[in-house]
């Protein structure tokens, strides 16, 4: 059995979770949402198991040159799926927002399937530039940041739906979606966590670049796009303090921020040449 196999098992659980969340959204029966959560947790556990196995496999295959499975495009797709699910479960645990699962599980499943169907799952030794202790911290912080932004974007979407719901005629007496204030708060918290993690990701990347490439900043497309993402979310956090920037503009700004995040991760790797080309297909 391999990591690949466990990732497939996880995909099955996530698919079931997605169906339950959709049923929950349609039928509005709480037990459906609860089961969706349980299955999501099972999916996350299998992903974790798969990662642990893949890590172990890399040491079995490569001896002392084994490495954490966060070093190529395939692994980054699976890991993104893992971080998004983790972020969703943490937020759901704290704020009880099972409906968020209906937005997050399809995203996680999409990336997991993209990895399993198109990615190269072989384990290779690392090129010299990646042999560094900075690797773990840099990739971990960046991807956890991406996940926080993804979940923030999901709450922004829910917020936009919720506020639209209200303006169209009578407010529904028993709505599926939580109060806009709660969504705003969850959104803000997620952006804050994401901003902290992205900053740490940029700082660790910068320190590593100073060691590996000879410069802490060289305007490589990946660096530049991470700065663009950082600037957008910095603008979002400041816009919240300026009067007149209510929930809706912020929600739209969050969508823009996540679009930039996706481009920073996927677009740069697939479209722009640069120093971060380890992640190319």
């Amino acid at each position: 059995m391999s990591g690949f196999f466990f990732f497939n098992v996880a995909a099955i659980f996530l698919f079931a979770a997605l169906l339950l969340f959709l049923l929950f959204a349609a039928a509005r029966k709480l037990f459906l949402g609860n089961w969706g959560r349980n299955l999501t947790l099972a999916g996350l556990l299998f992903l974790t198991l798969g990662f642990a196995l893949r890590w172990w496999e890399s040491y079995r295959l490569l001896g002392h040159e084994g490495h954490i499975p966060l070093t190529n495009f395939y692994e980054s797709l699976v890991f993104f799926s893992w971080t998004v699910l983790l972020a969703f479960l943490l937020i759901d645990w704290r704020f009880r927002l099972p409906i968020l699962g209906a937005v997050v599980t399809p995203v996680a499943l999409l990336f997991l399937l993209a990895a399993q169907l198109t990615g190269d799952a072989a384990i290779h030794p690392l090129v010299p530039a990646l042999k560094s202790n900075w690797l773990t911290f840099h990739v971990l912080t960046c991807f956890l940041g991406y996940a926080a932004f993804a979940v923030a974007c999901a709450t922004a979407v829910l917020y936009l739906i919720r506020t639209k719901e209200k303006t169209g005629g009578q407010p529904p007496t028993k709505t599926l979606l939580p109060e806009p204030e709660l969504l705003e708060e969850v959104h803000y918290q997620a952006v804050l966590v994401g901003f902290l993690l992205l900053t740490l990701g940029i700082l660790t990347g910068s320190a590593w670049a100073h060691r590996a490439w000879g410069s802490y900043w060289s305007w490589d497309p990946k660096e530049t796009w991470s700065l663009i993402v950082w600037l957008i979310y910095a603008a979002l956090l400041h816009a919240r303090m300026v009067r007149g920037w209510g929930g809706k503009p912020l929600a739209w700004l969050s969508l823009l921020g996540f679009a930039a995040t996706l481009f920073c991760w996927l677009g740069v790797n697939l479209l722009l040449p640069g120093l971060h080309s380890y992640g190319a297909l």
Partner: protein
Amino acid sequence: MTERFLRFLASLRLTLPLLFGLALGAVAGTVIPQNLTPAEYEGLYPAALTVVLKALQLFDVYRSWWFIALLGLLAANLLFCSWQRLPALGKSLRDIPAAPPPYDARRQFIATFFLPGGDSRGTADAVAVFLKRRFSTPRRFLHGTNVTLAAQRGAWTSLAVFAIHGAILLVLGGGMTGAFLGFQGYAVIPEGKTVLELLPRRGDKPIPLPFGLRCDAFTVTFHEDGRRPREFKSLVSILEDGRVVRERQAITVNNPLSFGGIRLYQSDYGPAAPPRVTLRVHPPVPGVPFETTLAPGERAPMTHGGEVRLVRFVANFRDLGPTALVEVMTSGGASYALPVFQHRPDLDQAHHFKDLQIHLSSFQQPYYTVLLASRDPGVPLVWSGFILLAAGLTTAFLCSRRRLWIALAPQKDGLALTVTGEWRRNPATATAFFRRLTQEMKKELGKED
């Protein structure tokens, strides 16, 4: 006028356009290829567009006057904004108002309860003790017979915002210091040679090095698949006044060497001269086995007549290791090409030709190494900015200010208490916290009576 300008420089209304402007500039810098030659741009864009893009300095965005001006404005904005808020910061760290600000449901919790038979002085003392234990030491304000106790926690987290903004100024300052006082250049050194100057990254004026840099050896090793590099390693010596002061120091990717404020990084490599390949030739019986060393294109006579020529050599062919293509020319004028493999002599057998055996016994590839030499006196500033930024953001994320006012108003047969809690973040958690605090306090005050 000046005051209005300064207020504009300090305002958040300027911050947002600056952040978006920098983001847009950065996008342009990644979408338009930067710093190509005029000929390369000619192939990319129509002539008219090239003129416009060049005039807007979009071919060198990060060094353009407008991008640097935006960064400068951001620095001014950060500086004036912090400066303007500094007095208020000092005040908010020390002082707390005697009464809560007007009620705002989004950031305040309010609860009232009645304490039968309580007197304001004694109860205020009890509340003060409770607050000191469970929240923080309160200040006491008297208005006639009414008493208000006010306390705050985490007020110092306002400092985090200053730390974050200061950190960004430090990083920008460090970047500027590096740009003005530092340099970067490449040392291209063939094995065994010494260089005294660097090729600059931009322009063509060589940069003198304060020491001599000698490459003693360069090696590249590959993984078992033969294609993925495992390690690039230069062994270098540093010479001052012709004397070796550091000998055979290893530089690999991710492990630079520091000397005299200059850091040296493994950056690239290449062949300094054609490879020299040693072939072992076993001619048919009357001939005597011999070895010959050839560069590609060179030929050597064989002891039994005819010639052997080295056509091509690759250090790694597929996953078969060092491989040479040799051509055998018989004395009769026929010629045959055959590959020979250093690590797989068993494959050489397949190409046997009339009892003639040729093997690849060794090869020598002289390399040159390319080291990036960098001097950047701004780095310590940048690092301190990074640490401050990480600390400031973590603090701002983990803690926030909470304030609490407890007003005691004597009534006919007891005491009315109004609890007002105020938060900056996390309404749900803060509300739960203030509710729990109120209940605990109620219980404790009831017990004493």
